[in-house]
């Protein structure tokens, strides 16, 4: 079967670090709550990929099961998060997080 | 060896591709004929003998129509939408076993493009991606009717995917395999799965109707309320892609119903007929297509018999009837399997 010839684990670690950083960058850079949320999904996704790479490296199924739980939690989080966004949109007609500034020091 | 395999796979893929397209093409014709029969009229009969060339005439008409993209539409997405719809519906054929093995010389050729061990998951994945074609198309048109149609279509497909998945899980629990090839082989040894999973079959059938957006669940394109639904703004071959993908979906889901619940390419008493080897495989393929054509006919029969649901009825059916039923089915299946394996002793 397809064994990854010549792709060191470090490549996967670097790839996932980059994806994770891009996710963090997006969270800080964007103001639209929906896009911020997508960037968080991107972060979780990079974690998943890294776990699968490690699982392959250690020949250990535990990490893949962990990925399973992360997916489950991501799905639950999305359903709640989008419900929150919809609720806010009903009140404010925007998903821009700067429009919500009632609570300031 | 390897190159023979690759060449064979390429040929098989092309063959499946062609057959799918031809069947879908003639399904459009069959649809009109069936409608005519059910309504006691002639249907198309001018183009060629018995109107056999009608689909080609339709195709030429589609191709030569004006290519029109609305000014406010998102151009890239407007083209992407129909392409995804077409792509996803053609992808499903890859895991369906079309017949037994063919032996030519030293080689054994499987009549299945790939027998991956997660075939059912592959199907679910492709089906769930299929929503994007409609969503993107409806969104890109920048038209209220299209948007409403797309919203309806996507929520309908998401809702019915759940019940479909649950019905499939019961089947998987019973067969213990996610590979379609394996499921069909098991039905050769035992009885067809419909005997063990009648409720699961009914749920899957209803969900398959809803997933393909066929009547009585064709709410995304109700012409009386939404003009044309998500493809209101589409014309020419882009519209053709959408319409065509619907027929391909119908063909593929008929094939799936036959594979999962009606023994696939197997038929009763096939080993006592005295034929075997390549001859048997060919007969099996023919039988398999017979089953598929029956279900395609069934689709049309239902379309011209049962009136369309209202949207709230559709959602109620999905969430309040099918999902509880599917869970019940899952539960019963689990208990029966538990008894068979002696968990309760």
């Amino acid at each position, binding site marked *: 079967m*397809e*064994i*990854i010839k*010549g*792709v*060191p*684990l470090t*490549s996967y670690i*670097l*790839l996932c*670090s980059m*994806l*994770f*950083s*891009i*996710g*963090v960058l*997006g969270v*800080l850079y*964007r*103001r639209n709550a*929906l*896009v911020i*949320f997508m*960037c968080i*999904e*991107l972060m979780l*996704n990079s974690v998943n*990929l890294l776990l*699968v*790479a490690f699982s*392959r*490296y250690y*020949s250990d*199924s*535990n990490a893949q*099961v962990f990925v*399973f*739980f992360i997916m489950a939690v*991501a*799905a639950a989080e999305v*359903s*709640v998060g989008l*419900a*929150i966004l*919809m*609720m806010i949109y009903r009140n404010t007609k*925007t998903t*821009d997080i700067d429009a919500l500034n009632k609570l300031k020091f | 060896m390897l190159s023979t395999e690759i060449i064979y796979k390429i040929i098989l893929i092309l063959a499946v591709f062609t057959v799918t397209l031809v069947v879908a093409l003639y399904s459009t014709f069959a649809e009109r004929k069936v409608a005519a029969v059910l309504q006691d009229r002639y249907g198309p009969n001018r183009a060629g003998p018995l109107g056999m060339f009608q689909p080609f005439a339709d195709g030429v008409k589609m191709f030569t129509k004006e290519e029109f993209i609305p000014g406010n539409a998102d151009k890239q997405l407007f083209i992407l939408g129909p392409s995804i719809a077409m792509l996803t519906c053609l992808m499903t054929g890859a895991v369906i076993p079309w017949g037994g093995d063919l032996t030519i010389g030293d080689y054994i050729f499987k009549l299945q493009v790939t027998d991956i061990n*997660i075939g059912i*998951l592959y199907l679910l*994945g492709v089906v*769930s*991606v299929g*929503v*994007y074609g409609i969503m993107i198309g409806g*969104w890109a048109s920048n038209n209220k009717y299209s*948007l409403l149609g797309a919203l309806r279509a*996507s929520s309908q497909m998401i809702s019915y995917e759940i019940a479909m998945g649950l019905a499939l899980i019961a089947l998987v629990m019973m067969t213990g395999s*996610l590979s379609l090839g394996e499921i069909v082989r098991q039905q050769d040894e035992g009885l067809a799965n419909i005997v063990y999973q009648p409720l699961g079959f009914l749920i899957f059938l209803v969900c398959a109707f809803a997933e393909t957006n066929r009547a009585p669940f064709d709410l995304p394109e109700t012409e009386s309320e939404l003009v044309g639904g998500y493809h209101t703004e589409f014309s020419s071959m882009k519209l053709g892609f959408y319409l065509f993908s619907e027929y391909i979906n119908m063909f593929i889901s008929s094939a799936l119903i036959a594979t999962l619940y009606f023994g696939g390419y197997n038929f009763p008493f096939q080993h006592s007929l005295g034929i075997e080897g390549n001859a048997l495989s060919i007969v099996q393929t023919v039988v398999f297509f017979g089953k598929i054509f029956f279900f395609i006919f069934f689709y049309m029969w239902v379309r011209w018999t049962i009136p369309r649901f209202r949207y709230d009825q559709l959602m109620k059916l999905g969430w309040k009837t099918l999902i509880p039923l599917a869970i019940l089915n899952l539960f019963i299946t689990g208990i029966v399997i538990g008894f068979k394996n002696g968990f309760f002793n």
Partner: protein
Amino acid sequence: MITQYLFYFLTFTAIFCALLVVFSKNPIYSALYLIVTFFATAGHYFLLNAQFLGAVHVIVYAGAIMVLFIYVIMMLNLNKEVEPHKSNIIKIAATVCGGILGLVLIAALRETELGEITEYSNNGIGLIEKLGNVLFGAYMVPFEISTVLFLSAMVGAVFLSKKNIH
């Protein structure tokens, strides 16, 4: 050899589309690029011989989560560029922060001497039978507990979206 090319192709796609997720003006383009990123990740899963997770990844992320995202974008009709013009300082600060985080991670993890995955042959850890045994064996308790998570997410989503009669 071919897997190496595939690896680089998928990596490039994933990172390029991830950047586009962040920098696209229109939310729907962000969502679509995110879907492409997810498909690239699924490709990586298949390369790593985790077919089952790859398929589940497509079903869950591309088939359910992103559909919900696009659904919400469509419902809210966020067609236009809704983002107000932010001061460039915040954007630059964000870019610097993200960049520094990335650099730190890469610089620190670059040195990791863990060898190649090649040596560890395929023993079917990604196959569904193996995963099922682990999930319903050692991970039985978390599996059951996660039902509480789903229930609370369901109740929460319904609670937030239903209209109150006041």
